[in-house]
């Protein structure tokens, strides 16, 4: 049965932005901006987000943007948050719009410390699994065996599990989301806004150029990633309470991997190894959520 998603566009994200044609990160930012509303400030490090909301020729985002340095998002946001609090402007939301490189790698020290201090920040990580704005090099979010400009034979190590790392910090709220599940994304933003302290939503962004995809499959790939269990949709509260949002894993990983040029060097045996790893990670997640099929 077709379902209609209720979405009120308050005009906070403008057309004419500089995302690549077909990019679903722009879609995610549109949802985020309109859910959060005008009483917010966005901290944006160098990233695809910076290109999208930044220079074309006026900002595509209708709220103030502080374009900080790549390693500094969570620290910059901490400063803004504390100053707003000291100025009795606690109701102004401080959001971060960062990529995976600026979050998992160079920005990780600042992020970890902001979570440890439990800063009142809503952080969005647009996870396209690599440094796509510099032409597509690996990040620590790049999955095992994916080819990038700096891992031409496939990345030899696993994707860093940022949800678990932040859960281990006892972060009040961390969730995964995708632009292929906008109702779920919208609900998570609404929920995050009711929680005090540090909140993180990691949004998988299938990168058309970096992953080698056709211009019109961004949403499809995001859904496939969830359906094959490679990117589970779930939430963790206070580092303890796990909720799995899509209970079933219905497709083999090959359905997802074979549509991407970054995996075209894989043989069936390697796809089998990835399947085994995804199955194992899925079982471990089920144990945490306490749900089983």
């Amino acid at each position: 049965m077709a379902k209609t998603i209720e979405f009120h566009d308050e005009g906070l994200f403008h057309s004419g932005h500089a995302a690549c044609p077909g990019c679903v990160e722009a879609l995610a930012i549109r949802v985020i901006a309109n859910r959060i509303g005008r009483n917010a400030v966005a901290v944006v490090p160098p990233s695809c987000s910076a290109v999208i909301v930044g220079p074309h020729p006026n900002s595509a985002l209708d709220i103030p943007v502080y374009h900080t340095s790549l390693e500094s998002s969570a620290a910059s946001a901490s400063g803004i948050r504390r100053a707003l609090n000291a100025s009795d402007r606690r109701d102004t939301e401080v959001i971060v719009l960062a990529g995976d490189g600026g979050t998992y790698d160079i920005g990780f020290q600042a992020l970890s410390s902001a979570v440890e201090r439990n800063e009142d920040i809503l952080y969005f990580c647009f996870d396209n699994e690599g440094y796509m704005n510099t032409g597509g090099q690996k990040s620590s979010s790049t999955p095992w065996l994916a080819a990038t400009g700096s891992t031409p034979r496939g990345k030899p190590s696993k994707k860093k599990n940022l949800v678990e790392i932040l859960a281990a910090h006892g972060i009040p709220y961390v969730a995964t989301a995708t632009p292929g599940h906008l109702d779920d994304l919208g609900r998570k933003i609404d929920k995050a806004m009711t929680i005090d302290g540090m909140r993180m939503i990691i949004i998988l962004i299938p990168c058309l150029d970096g992953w080698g995809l056709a211009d019109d499959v961004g949403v499809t790939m995001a859904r496939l990633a969830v359906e094959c269990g490679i990117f589970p949709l779930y939430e963790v509260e206070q580092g303890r309470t796990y909720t799995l949002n899509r209970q079933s894993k219905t497709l083999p990983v090959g359905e997802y991997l074979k549509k991407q040029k970054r995996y075209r060097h894989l043989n069936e045996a390697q796809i089998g190894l990835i399947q085994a790893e995804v199955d194992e990670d899925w079982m471990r997640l089920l144990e945490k959520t306490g749900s089983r099929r």
Partner: protein
Amino acid sequence: MSTEPATTTQNLEGNEACALGAIAGGCRFYAGYPITPSSEIAERMASELPGVGGVFIQMEDEIASMAAILGASMGGLKVMTATSGPGFSLKQENLGLAVATEIPCVIIDVMRGGPSTGLPTRPAQGDYMQARWGTHGDHAIIVLTPASVAEIYAQTIRAFNLAEAFRTPVVILYEETIGHLRETVDLPAPETIEIIDRQWAAPDDRNFLPYRPGTDGIPAMPRPGDGHRTHMTGLTHGEDGFPTQKPEAIAAANRHLSHKLEPHLDRIEQFEIVAGEDAEVIVVACGLVARAAKRAVAKARAKGIRAGLFRPITLWPFPTLPLQALLQPAGAVIVAEMNAGQLIAEVERHAGDHCRVVGLNRIDGEAITPSQILQQIEELAND
């Protein structure tokens, strides 16, 4: 049949030539972090290094990239990293550690507009002073400024030799435009390339002191595993390598770090002079701007104006004496640079009172053109 060693001709981008020059110069360890406009160097190193038994690591940030190459250099490999202005800023503390501990390393900075994020895809020459003085404290450093794809290849090889010979960081600066420019390059046969290796301490030298200068003023380096009990520290240290608070030992250590290159300027300095003999107006320019200046000088000569070019290839230590000799008969000098005026201060303090020094600057993300330089030459020649 010719007995000349064979050269191979390739059409290369500047950043590719840098990577290939590094490997030809003996680089076997690269640690880096993606940043425009230098990322192609990392990508080429990622694909080339495994084939020659080398190591490529993409690190988590710029600081880690710099720290990793220092570790690998101590471990015995020839090492390099590459970045651009913002990343170069992050590397500065560990660059200072390389200076203090005298660890050979090569750092590439493909210059883009600054400050801060600036203009990631546009050329600039704003890092001349960051390369010289970006890390804190007094020190000597070698900085090279190639002006063509072929020269990037040759100077990258030379950078490794200088780093090894003098146990110093060597920085190569070139502009985004040359990093992404394609030119045809004749690559020399590997057996014709001069390679210099650092002086290792003899494993059985019981009197070895890790920072006692050798006969050339440069201390031999202890290789881990050779049995020397050494201490490498960024704290100011004596010849035994251990931290010191003794004023005379501190002064000696700092004098060494500031002046250790001076006896070797003949091997370090490189520069190009075009039409210098009888020149009345000299243009001083590096890299991309020197290419425009060369054309402007040729046009001025065609018009009967006695113009010449001085192009430092070694920017630091600045080739002071060769420039002074050239400026003796000249009445005016134009310092053309794509910044608000960094090199001009160095030229002014060496030019002498008889010589008028004029800056020609561009800070709008566009390159200085030959016609801009020619116009300035004509104005000074008519004065």
